[in-house]
């Protein structure tokens, strides 16, 4: 789960990680009021959406007067912001963050991520602040410092010194500031079950303080049950409505661009099914994992979500029944076709426990548009053919 910049900064503030002062608003008038309260003389008007690259897309602008705050807030609020992370359809800006301008001497990059190879959190920093860190990693990898921190010992002094010296910070007061900054950041990473914290840029001010000018945070979904304050920060309007709807029924759904809707049990087989469709010359319309306990209701819901996509010309139901018996799933599919109007050909491949019985049930049901397939390859081929014929 991701949160907005203003929410990340609320968490930072709770742990004493310095940030410029700011106020989240949802209207132009409130933006001007917020600017008055902050005092100025310079403000930054920032679009709050769950995507990076907001500045380049025109969603972050500097205001030098209250009038400018009003003009910029009016311009940004309600705009559809397109960045390299939003996709071409962009994201509607519904919230703004009005922030004090900062006295920027120079810019750094700082993040905490989970290093899957080391199996522990890793602090990553660079003097190349404000840049895309992937580009820095590719062009000048020597400018990235990595400091793994074993959670069993926590953030120690030496971690801080490696960071400070690595960034070329030589002033003793500044060293103290950056070490304290990183230590608090690591603590909040651990205590909140964060998956990622990224501050880009982290700025050094004229007086040698370090400030989080931006803040991005992602959290481990599996740990939200014990992080109620974080869970309450979830902004559903930032998520794909179909994915949210699917999740309510225990389905894992991701929309793609193609023409063949997929309904599969298991994440690996679901990806494998998409790959097979692609290999056979078709295009998958979605990833959909119905999970281990597929029944008539979840299958019907799956059909409904897949069919919302007007591009879908055929559906491939690919189930390898393990503990779940295929005959039950076959009945589920028949039930589901009664609950939902399925107007495209449906190719069904059921394998595993009680597969022959399932295939009999489907054949005897005499459902129009239902094509039975014998295995994965056969099913993918039949789906591709059905989509082309439709």
């Amino acid at each position, binding site marked *: 789960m991701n949160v907005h910049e203003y929410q990340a900064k609320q968490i930072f503030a709770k742990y004493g990680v310095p940030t410029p002062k700011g106020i989240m608003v949802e209207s132009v008038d409130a933006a001007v009021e917020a600017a008055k309260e902050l005092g100025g003389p310079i403000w930054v008007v920032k679009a709050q959406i769950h995507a990076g690259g907001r500045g380049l897309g025109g969603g972050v602008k500097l205001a030098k007067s209250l009038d400018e705050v009003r003009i910029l807030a009016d311009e940004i609020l309600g705009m559809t912001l397109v960045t390299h992370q939003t996709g071409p359809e962009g994201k509607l800006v519904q919230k703004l963050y009005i922030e004090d301008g900062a006295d920027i001497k120079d810019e750094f990059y700082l993040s905490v991520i989970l290093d899957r190879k080391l199996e522990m959190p890793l602090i990553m920093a660079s003097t190349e602040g404000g840049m895309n860190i992937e580009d820095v990693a590719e062009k000048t990898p020597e400018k990235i410092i990595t400091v793994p921190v074993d959670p069993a010992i926590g953030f120690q002094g030496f971690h801080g010194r490696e960071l400070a010296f690595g960034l070329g910070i030589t002033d003793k007061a500044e060293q103290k500031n950056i070490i304290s900054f990183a230590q608090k950041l690591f603590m909040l990473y651990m205590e909140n079950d964060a998956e990622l914290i990224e501050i880009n840029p982290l700025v050094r001010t004229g007086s040698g303080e370090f400030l989080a000018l931006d803040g991005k945070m992602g959290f481990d979904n599996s740990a939200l049950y014990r992080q109620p304050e974080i869970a309450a920060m979830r902004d559903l309007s930032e998520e794909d409505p179909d994915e949210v709807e699917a999740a309510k029924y225990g389905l894992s759904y*991701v929309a793609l661009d193609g023409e063949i809707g997929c309904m599969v049990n298991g994440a690996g087989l679901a990806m494998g099914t998409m790959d097979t469709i692609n290999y056979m010359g078709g295009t998958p319309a979605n990833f959909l994992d119905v999970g281990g306990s597929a029944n008539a209701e979840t299958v019907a819901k799956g059909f409904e979500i897949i069919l919302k996509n007007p591009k879908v010309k055929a559906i491939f139901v690919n189930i390898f029944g393990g503990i779940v018996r295929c005959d039950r799933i076959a009945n589920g599919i028949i039930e589901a076709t009664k609950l939902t109007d399925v107007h495209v050909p449906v190719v069904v491949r059921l394998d595993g426990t009680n597969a022959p019985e399932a295939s009999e049930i489907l054949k005897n049901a005499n459902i129009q548009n239902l094509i039975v397939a014998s295995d994965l*390859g056969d099913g993918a081929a039949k789906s591709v053919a059905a989509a082309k014929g439709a």
Partner: protein
Amino acid sequence: MSILVNKKTKVIVQGFTGKEGSFHAEQCIEYGTNIVGGVTPNKGGQTHLGKPVFNTVSEAVKATGATVSMIFVPPAFVGDAVMEAAEAGIELAVIITEGAPVKDMQMAKAYATKHGMKTLGPNCPGIITAQECKIGIMPGMIFKKGGVGLISKSGTLTYEGANQVCNEGYGITTAVGIGGDPIIGLSYKQLLPMFEADPETKCIVMIGEIGGDLEIQAAKLIKEKITKPVVAFIAGQTAPKGKTMGHAGAIVSGSAGTAKEKMDALKAAGVKVVVSPAEIGKAVKEVLS
């Protein structure tokens, strides 16, 4: 022969009397797994599925001599359960539960390693030595005895792969589900050499997916140390960047962890890489004939 588990392996179940634990433990017993007891706090002294229940893993180990634990406790208690098993001297913990917090697994795995305990999973279908011992949730009847070792991040792709291998007239020595979480226990790197050393295993199927770099590490190891033929499939060639595809660890971050990168590395290591999982059976036949 087989790897890690066989019909003699003594197994206990943590979360024995719960709904999932009971259902799957019963299936395992039916399959022939030597389940010697289970652990559910405050139910010690009872008998469940004809086996003794203990309050703690250490009591269970002392009384039964179990070396493997199958873990079915709810996600919030997985870290605790794994560490308890490690402390009690269990040699291998098979963690079936899905949805354990990543932080808990970091701690638990580090602790297990310190105690010399191997782990499998979490969020995995378990491990099965065909027609001898099933520790997990896979449909046992698919796995016929034979000479193919299988390692997979995905449950249903394990079934798909094993089924094709058996339909081609071959069979399975041991199939291992390693799980698709960001932090997992035994992986290709540890399991490939075990299959290499197992005289019954003639060929290894490895099924991977997008995210992380375990398959890249595997490619390096195969090039240097594995002489048996390896067939591989990597799921997620058509997955978009930056989206989690069902498994918490199945995500392409930036340009890292793509299927193509992994397939290329495996091909360069001499592995027979298939583009669709529908080709696994045929590929095994090809490398074995």
